[in-house]
């Protein structure tokens, strides 16, 4: 079984300050990890992913995420937050072993709302 936890329902940060959104995961094998963002009244947009390789992954809109295998975490970060970053952020995981036979299914965390204040 695979699972994802986003321990914070909401994160508040001042514009220009660094932003961190936390995510921890559980899979039986190696993880395939994603971050998605949802702006108000929109669908989910892909931000970045981790498969293998460098633990620091860079994505869209200046976001990056750090994979930490020992802590089973994949925290999303942005060095300097913008008001326009205010949105709902979702972390998702798939066990790489799962593959097509199990439908390439993702498991999502509950989401973290980010509010960036001017």
């Amino acid at each position, binding site marked *: 079984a695979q699972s994802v936890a*986003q321990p914070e*329902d909401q994160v508040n940060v001042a514009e220009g300050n660094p932003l961190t959104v936390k995510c921890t995961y559980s899979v039986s094998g190696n993880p395939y990890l994603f971050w998605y963002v949802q702006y108000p009244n929109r*669908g989910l947009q*892909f931000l970045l*992913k981790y498969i293998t390789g460098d633990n620091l992954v860079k994505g869209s809109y200046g976001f990056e995420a750090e994979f930490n295998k020992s802590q089973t975490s994949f925290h999303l970060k942005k060095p300097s937050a913008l008001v326009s970053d205010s949105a709902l952020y979702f972390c998702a995981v798939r066990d790489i072993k799962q593959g097509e036979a199990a439908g*390439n*299914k993702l498991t*999502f*965390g509950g989401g973290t709302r980010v509010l960036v204040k001017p």
Partner: protein
Amino acid sequence: DAGITQSPRHKVTETGTPVTLRCHQTENHRYMYWYRQDPGHGLRLIHYSYGVKDTDKGEVSDGYSVSRSKTEDFLLTLESATSSQTSVYFCAISKLGTGGYNEQFFGPGTRLTVL
């Protein structure tokens, strides 16, 4: 943009009525998914399809059925809607991304209210 559209985008219905939501894709992807999004629960998988007439249940499939008679269309049906099915419904497709692994891309969503 993975060429995914959903219809209707908004619907209000009454308890006990049947409802069908449509997901349409233009890129002939094999895998399609239906999720519901509720506060505090993130996205939960309802059903998915791995080909024409091939479907399987997700974690919250009770009260929902699906059909896929054509590659491009994946229908979600609530046979008898209940207030607990008030939610935002997202369709997704899975396609090969960089790195050789499948990634999911999402439609714009359908907001369903059951009174």
